């Protein structure tokens, strides 16, 4: 499954041993800079560098990485198309009065605006992929704890994280069982099968919850959850690389100013 795939890659990636905060700084810093940027150039620059790091340093398969982008890019394209058509401007290239007081137009401003949004999506996606492909959730839990996030919240997150995979497994099994008996052969059948699937998943998770309490009680649960407290120290070269990357990106954000496509 998809989410398992991401975790799988994160567990084995080439940047696994780099300090968690460093990776988070690089990822979150890029997202912030993407949002601050008013030009389309800086997000593309950051996307290129982060993708390079994902492909070359973390050694993620290029095909897998490209597949991750397909769905968000499709979504972004549709949204950007909407933005371009709806945003007005002075220099009109094309216009269509669809309804009174609601013209659809393509203008210089709308194209530039659309381009910036589209590039921000690419930059932001690369940054998110960078975090999720290089930092396993378990490392993020440790970071949360060190950042003084309340223990209850972290515990809940950990139990949810663990349960997602079990529930997902069960849902897949039920789904296959339905397919095997032609559960999704017609539209009507599909709706019925999907409803049954949801019901079964609910019962399964209820059951799993009961067992969870039992399993925790059997091991003397007293409100404590151990954490794998170790985090790698910040090493020189990666630290320097992240600093240079962020400073360079910030400089480009400032320098590029309002440079637009057309």
């Amino acid at each position, binding site marked *: 499954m998809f989410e*398992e795939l991401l*975790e*799988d890659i994160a*567990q084995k990636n080439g940047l696994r041993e780099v300090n968690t905060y460093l990776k988070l700084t690089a990822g979150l810093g890029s997202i912030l800079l993407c949002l601050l940027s008013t030009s389309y150039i800086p997000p593309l620059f950051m996307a290129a560098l982060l993708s390079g790091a994902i492909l070359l340093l973390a050694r993620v398969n290029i095909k897998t990485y490209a597949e991750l982008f397909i769905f968000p890019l499709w979504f972004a394209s549709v949204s950007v198309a909407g933005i371009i058509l709806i945003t007005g401007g002075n220099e009109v290239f094309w216009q269509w009065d669809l309804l009174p007081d609601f013209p659809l137009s393509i203008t210089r401003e709308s194209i530039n605006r659309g381009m910036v949004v589209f590039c921000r999506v690419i930059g932001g996606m690369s940054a998110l992929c960078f975090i999720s492909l290089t930092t*396993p*959730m*378990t490392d993020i*839990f440790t970071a949360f704890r060190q950042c003084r996030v309340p223990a209850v919240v972290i515990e809940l997150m*950990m*139990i949810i*994280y*663990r349960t997602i*995979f*079990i529930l997902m*497994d069960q849902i897949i099994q039920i789904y296959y069982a339905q397919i095997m008996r032609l559960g999704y052969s017609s539209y009507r059948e599909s709706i019925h099968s999907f409803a049954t699937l949801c019901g079964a998943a609910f019962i399964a998770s209820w059951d*799993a919850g009961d*067992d*969870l309490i*039992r*399993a*925790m*009680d*059997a*091991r*003397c*649960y*007293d*409100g*404590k*959850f*151990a*954490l*794998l*407290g170790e985090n790698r120290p910040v090493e020189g070269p990666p630290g320097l690389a992240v600093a240079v990357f962020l400073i360079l990106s910030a400089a480009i954000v400032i320098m590029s100013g309002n440079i637009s496509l057309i």
Partner: protein
Amino acid sequence: MSSIILEARNLSYRYPRGMDAICDISFHIRKKEKIALVGPNGAGKSTLLMMFNGMIRPDSGIMLFDNQPILYDYSSLRLLRKRVGFVLQNPDRQIIAPTVYQDVAFGPTNLGYSEEEVRDAVTRALHHVGLEGFERRPPHQISGGEKKRVAIAGVLAMDPDVLVFDEPTSGLDPSGSENIMELLDELNNEGKTIIISTHDVELVYPWADRAILMLGGKILQEDIPEVAFGNPESVRMAHLSVPTLLELHMELQKRGFLRNGKKPRTVLDMMHCIETLLGKSRSHSSHGTITVCNVDLDNGILLSTWLSARKDISVGAMGTRAKQQAENLRISLDFTYGVIDKCILKALLGEDSLILTTESMIKRVYKRVVAYGEESGMIISVQPLNSPPEAVNETTGSLS
């Protein structure tokens, strides 16, 4: 005989939906015993197991642990659960934390151990089940057998006296099942009382000290496995099957080939019966030698050179650490389960064999070989590869 650790007196329990789960059951379990609860689905095995650590409170009757009635208040239950470890049937339901380390550390952390002690307990438990290096792995990325081991490690980390397993081998492949049974043997050898529930008669027959056959919430029969499984009537009632060896022995007996004697528990016992029957005892021909190697000592090089001089020798490994070392040294293993018996069989054929095992299990090899020697009158020599010689001479002396 060792003292009683768990005792049930007239236990009864009714499910919330009204069905009788346990009806007036009484029995006791002694320290260091290996007990198998066998019976069909719905016989009440799991319910009974859950009473051992106070997960289920009987409606009537009392459960005693270490001769004290179990109390059901919070602190007494915590104490009880520290001493009676419970491993659920489905490891996915038992493993609660997102990494192996965190899961194994769950019990010790909640018992209030310091961080240092928790780390020690986890390291020891993972070492025990042979999962060193798995600390940071998430449970959904490891195999079924490994998950089972993580679940066991999670309980071992609390260092309980009694270990209760609900269907420990369900869902595992045959070699995985055998490995788990051997791990249970190893734990028992270290002084832990082991109670399991299972349907697998063949697996449990040579393993258990005592078998308890259950049906419809009652105990059908409770005895040593030869007797408990040797009664076709109760075996049929409990929806089980007679173990093949026992059935073969009974058939041979019916035909007058065998006299009433000790029933065979293992292939080795059966061979002995058949050889006695045919009058072809090999006691005068030359037997092979069993060499025992202690893997707790640092002896990789010695072992490799010793083995390279003996290409055709059969090698068996007993215990998780021994198997691990064999893997590290790239030694291919011929036996991984029932190793001592298989090596004795080899020795009887005049072939030599090597057993890799840990310090604590070495005594068992000698004990088993001596016991076999006394029973069959055949002398098989066991020699150490690297143990301190003075400790072993005594035993070999009694053998030859």
